[in-house]
């Protein structure tokens, strides 16, 4: 701040320049800092909400019908319950429920159960004969990650069908996107003339800007009939993972090509000239000198593309199918993690249902997968980057 040598007029100026602007400046600075901090709150919000509801999901008590009933009426103090022989086998430590009362099984006999009454805060009461007995279960973490059936109605919460479909769709997308994206990038950085570049770059930008719903429509109305015409109507189902995978691959091509092209352009010309001077052809230079030099950027591009494909929703929701299906055949219908989340939310969700909680558990898995991939891609760039100065 200019502070001129003291003189009557200079003192006034100095006095005017102090005071209000500085407090205003500090206020502005704080306001902008809060705006910046909002982004941190977003991440905290994501992790907190996903974590909290997932915790609900994993600690929630599910009651399944054991097909056993009370064989005789019991009073509030009876600790031995006569039960029918039919139905599922019960074990000690199981929690069971009759009407509103929760009990814990202590010992199992042929036709009777020894129980501890009034568990989990419920009150002991008399129960009539013939009432159904429900067994309590929780979604166990192990079952969540290794179960091969996802059917909330019957209490099955294995994520493997959804995860498997996600991975297959992503794999198909990558076989489309990686070669084509890298090919386009090599063409743009090594071969293309100015005119070709001016035609190609806007095309890629347009491809990247088309909404995913439109791609989903494209997959359902053009790619699937095409696949059915090529491979036969009895091989390819109307909803199948292959067409969704192919279209996701096309969606991701601009991402791969732009990131790879940035990496390839960053390789200094001196390397290429050195290769030419040694007598290499253009192809040999591109494949054996430039691409390895740009490896870190290209690898980062691949990883970001995989992360994008995993998180893609609308294309799989429209073209891949509407029910979990654990299969390795890409021509069958299956539901991915994202497709399942969307299908469950488009119905009417009550906030305390197991379906509502399951969305968050699935979202947490998805979040960690994509976050891990993004972090790996940043690390790869840092670790393998060749510095040319």
């Amino acid at each position, binding site marked *: 701040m200019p502070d001129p040598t003291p003189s009557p007029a200079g003192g006034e100026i100095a006095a005017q320049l102090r005071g209000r602007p500085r407090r205003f400046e500090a206020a502005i*600075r704080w306001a902008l800092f809060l705006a910046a901090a909002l982004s941190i709150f977003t991440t905290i919000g*994501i992790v907190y909400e996903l974590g909290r509801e997932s915790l609900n999901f994993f600690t929630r008590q599910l009651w399944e019908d054991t097909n056993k009933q009370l064989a005789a009426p019991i009073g509030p103090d009876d600790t031995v319950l006569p039960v029918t022989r039919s139905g599922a086998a019960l074990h000690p430590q199981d929690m069971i429920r009759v009407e509103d009362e929760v009990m814990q099984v202590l010992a199992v006999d042929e036709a009777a159960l020894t129980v501890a009454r009034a568990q989990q805060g419920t009150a002991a009461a008399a129960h009539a004969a013939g009432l159904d007995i429900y067994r309590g279960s929780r979604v166990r973490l192990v079952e969540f990650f290794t179960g091969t059936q996802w059917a909330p109605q019957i209490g099955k919460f294995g994520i493997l069908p959804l995860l498997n479909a996600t991975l297959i769709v992503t794999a198909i997308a990558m076989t489309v996107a990686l070669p084509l994206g890298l090919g386009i990038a090599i063409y743009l950085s090594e*071969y293309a003339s100015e005119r070709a570049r001016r035609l190609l770059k806007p*095309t890629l930008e347009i491809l990247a800007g088309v*909404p995913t719903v439109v791609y*989903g429509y494209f997959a359902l109305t053009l790619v699937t009939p095409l696949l059915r015409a090529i491979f036969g109507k009895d091989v390819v189902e109307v909803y199948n993972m292959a067409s969704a995978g192919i279209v996701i691959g096309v969606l991701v091509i601009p991402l791969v090509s732009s990131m790879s092209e940035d990496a390839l352009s960053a390789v200094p010309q001196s390397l290429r000239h050195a290769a030419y001077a040694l007598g290499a052809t253009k192809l040999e230079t591109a494949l054996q000198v430039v691409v390895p030099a740009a490896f870190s950027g290209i690898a980062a591009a691949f990883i970001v593309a995989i992360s994008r494909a995993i998180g893609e929703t*609308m294309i799989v929701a*429209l073209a891949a199918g509407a029910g979990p299906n654990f299969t390795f055949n890409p021509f069958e219908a299956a539901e991915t993690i994202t497709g399942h989340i969307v299908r469950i939310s488009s119905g009417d969700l009550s906030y305390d249902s197991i379906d509502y909680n399951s969305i968050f558990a699935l*979202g947490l898995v998805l979040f960690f997968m994509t976050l891990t991939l993004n*972090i790996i891609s940043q690390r790869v760039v840092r670790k393998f980057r060749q510095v040319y100065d």
Partner: protein
Amino acid sequence: MNGNGTRMQDEVLFQPNLPRRHRLGRWGLILFQMSTLVGIVVLTALVLNVLNRTFGYVAITYQVPPDALSINGIPVERLHPLDLAYLLRQHLTPEVLERLEREGPLEQRDRRELLDLLTTKVMRPKVLETWTLAQSVFCRQAIQSRVTRLYPEARLVFRSWLTPEFLTRPQSSRPEFAGVRTAVLGSLWVVAITIAFAFPIGVGTAIYLEEYAKGKDTWINRLIQTNINNLAGVPSIIYGILGLAIFVRALAPLTSGAVFGLVPEGTTANGRTILSAGLTLGLLILPIIIINAQEAIRAVPNSLRLASYGLGATQWQTIWHHVLPSAMPGILTGTILAMSRAIGETAPLIVVGASTFITVDPSGPFSKFTTLPIQIYQWTARPQDVFRHLAAAAIIVLLAMLLALNATAILLRNRYAKRRG
């Protein structure tokens, strides 16, 4: 070379193999060119596919055919509004007429509205079968013989599914009367709130990171920057889940309008409103706006700032009067690109709770809503062929909106670039 004695052996050992290497090089070039062709081919196929379903033959039956409504040989489309009103009075029941009159006297409505009323309430077309443009052009004979065989009382009309009525009609369960008005209005409302929320915060964050945090490499500044880069890569459906938990559920009193007393007595406050949708999408595009704005502010030459400081301006005065105006074209371009991303987003809004069937236009931030991409999704997901045509017409509307937005961005960019010299 080693010297005359070993020269011959060197030449034998060194095989330049040039013809093969050149041939491989040519094949490589062809391969790369093919890759670039794939992108162009797919884009063309996509556009053609959508156009293919927007026009075509339709087999329609009418309850009252349009010919029966012509007066003195003049077809119904060219009749005067007073004559149209007369036809309505002739064919509608008194109860329906009374209900219509309550909204406004028939004779004072405009022609398009009266024609629409005649179509939906008197003529009542019903679509029996549809064909794509390609089929209509190449298989005309086959289609005509099929129609005369299967639907003797139907007529074959070549129509476009994208009509002005399509744009002005609200959602309907009958495909013949369906339109995208509610969806388009919903989209516009949601995007307006998204930008109102994300633009100030995004630009503010970018200003903070580029101007105030530049000298201080503290852990919190680095954390903010890394965090923003990571948030840009989070799938959009996660933002939808976040919005569901926070805006729809936890902040339900705010987003449903209960706090402002807008929820009528007796109904449950529902947080699935345009406000929740706008805030969710705002969080989604915030990282994009921040990163673009950062680049735009970074591009402002430092000499500008230093000159301003040299004249005695404070930091904020420099930013507001010099840095921001200079960076504004880049910031605006980035914002418009983020807007076009927000318009096309579907998954987060479905999770946040767009209505599956809504015929009332949105009236404010606290209304229930549906958006154009969601409408396209719902129509595409239905098995009947008719809805695929409607979806194609809606896709064209969506692509037109996006084209207009992006063209504005490019124009802005060029205009400011010219001004800068």
